[in-house]
């Protein structure tokens, strides 16, 4: 090590921008561009749909969302376009879907990440992902041909048993064809389970081994370990997964159109037929003209607004809950 004999090194040029700098610039423009593209697409959808729906909004005013009657061709007078019944149908069927899908999905995801033997995991994941690959019209046909008729006796039984209970009994009213809010919700539950499961599983698998070890070393049972280490770590991600599932459930069109019964109806009775916004659009768009068409597009705008609202709400909830659960960082 004779430093003195070394020739002086070339002076490093700290300001030089080589090809790597160019790569960085291209990369940053590209990512910025794609990010902006998403916003642009969202904005364009919003602008064009609102413009197309404007005749209906103009004719109905705020009644478009507060009116429960939907009558495009009345015997006398003007057509009435009220989205409320369909918004209700969308909300109820999606809620039922989540009620069933979330516990099942979280259960499957926990099983796959924490309990299942390694050999079983791969095949199980494949099967669940295959469920996501089934076209929704197939679910709809299955629902209308098999599920709905098969559920009628069960609905009837529930009506007989629970129908008499005050207040709660109103959920289990008289049963019709089996094509109703409940059946739509159940079919949707099956359809959103794969997506919720698959994302939840990914989230659970990111929980560090160290966190789980910490819980186990304190004498936690497996369930206590899951509650103490896995859930707090993955709460935000799981809510995100549920929101994606909810988005799919609210937007699902053809399957719901086939099994929800097709009635303009607001009722507590889960066994009554109803309709959802997406289903109405697909059922009636082909035969619509003028303001009627505008009203159907208006349903799309309302659905869009509902989805965005729920997502924003969910983010607020997650932030609050995480601050409470994890303690504030600052």
């Amino acid at each position, binding site marked *: 090590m004779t430093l003195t004999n070394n020739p002086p090194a070339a002076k490093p040029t700290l300001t030089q921008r080589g090809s790597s700098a160019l790569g960085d610039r291209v990369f940053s423009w590209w990512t910025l561009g794609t990010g902006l593209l998403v916003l642009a697409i969202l904005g364009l959808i919003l602008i064009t749909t609102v413009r197309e729906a404007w005749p209906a909004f103009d004719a109905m005013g705020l009644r478009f969302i507060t009116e429960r009657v939907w009558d495009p061709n009345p015997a006398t007078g003007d057509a009435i376009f009220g989205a409320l019944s369909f918004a209700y149908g969308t909300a109820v069927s999606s809620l039922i879907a989540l009620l069933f899908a979330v516990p099942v999905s979280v259960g499957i995801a926990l099983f796959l990440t924490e309990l299942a033997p390694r050999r079983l995991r791969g095949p199980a994941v494949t099967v669940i992902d295959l469920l996501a690959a089934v076209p929704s019209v197939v679910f709809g046909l299955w629902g209308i041909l098999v599920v709905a008729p098969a559920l009628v006796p069960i609905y009837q039984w529930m009506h007989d048993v629970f129908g008499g209970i005050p207040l709660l009994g109103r959920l289990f009213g008289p049963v019709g064809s089996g094509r109703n809010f409940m059946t739509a919700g159940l079919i949707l539950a099956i359809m959103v389970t794969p997506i919720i499961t698959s994302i939840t599983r990914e989230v659970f698998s990111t929980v560090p081994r160290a966190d789980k070890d910490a819980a186990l070393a304190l004498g*936690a049972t497996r369930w206590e370990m899951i509650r103490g280490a896995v859930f707090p770590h993955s709460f935000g991600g799981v809510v995100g997964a549920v929101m994606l599932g909810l988005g799919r459930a609210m937007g699902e069109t053809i399957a719901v159109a086939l099994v929800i019964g097709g009635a303009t109806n607001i009722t507590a009775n889960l066994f009554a037929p109803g309709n959802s916004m997406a289903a109405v659009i697909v059922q009636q768009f082909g035969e619509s003209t003028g303001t009627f068409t505008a009203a159907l597009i208006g349903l799309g705008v309302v659905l869009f607004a509902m989805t965005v609202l729920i997502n924003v709400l969910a983010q607020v909830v997650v932030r609050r809950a995480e601050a409470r659960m994890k303690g504030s960082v*600052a």
Partner: protein
Amino acid sequence: MASNDTNLTTRPSVAVHAPGTTVSGADSANASVMQLRDVSVYYGSYEAVRGTTMPIQQNQVTAMIGPSGCGKSTVLRALNRMNDPIPGARVSGDVLFHGQDLYAKDVDPIQVRRRIGMVFQKPNPFPKSIYDNVAYGLRINGIKGRLDDHVEEALTKAALWDEVKDKLRKSALALSGGQQQRLCIARTIAVKPEVILMDEPCSALDPIATAKIEDLIFELTNDYTIVIVTHNMQQAARVSHYTAFFTAEVDEAQERHGRLVEFSQTGKLFTNPADKRTEDYITGRFG
């Protein structure tokens, strides 16, 4: 404390030293709270550590030192069945806790870990508030009411109370590495184990934080028995009463197996080792 439905503590302790291992100076005045008899740990068919026999003395610090891959951490994790969740991990021989084999069929690993706690290499507080980190173990052990007192006591014992008493609801992840590690120790002692296992607890910490933990380890021996794995010989010499030196042997099939070379009082092991391999290691001549 949690109900002791497993009679882990009821039997008298036994101290048995198998031949072949150098055991010297194991003060007979101290009771051994744990005893390893010919303990081997396997991952699948691979024998990671073979034939470990050594005592763990009550209210003393026992250090495990040795080069990387000598199986010291593996043995440590075998002491409270933390290897159980690893697929294919298996233990042979006897790991006795107050004379009772921890791997007997009727022993519940959950109960074992409630009595024998563990602190890990990387500070691993839960993504929860400081308070909830300590309270977690109390809650799962069914300790109800006066949680505040228990939390304060544990944090005080871990020499962390003064630093965090005004921000108990803040995230544990906002603490420094050294504070996080002391929080992990507080979390462990909150459930009042008898033995605390520490797996290189200072390897991710700076020298000042390390010194604090070492002071704390010394304090803790009033109430607890401590087993510490460290790659740092000076640390072992500073904090421990007994030291076990492990090394890795390569067999005919070119497989490495961890092996206990020597166990004795720390002063003796570092000044007058009985085994040539120990001497080579502590004098830095180890290849």
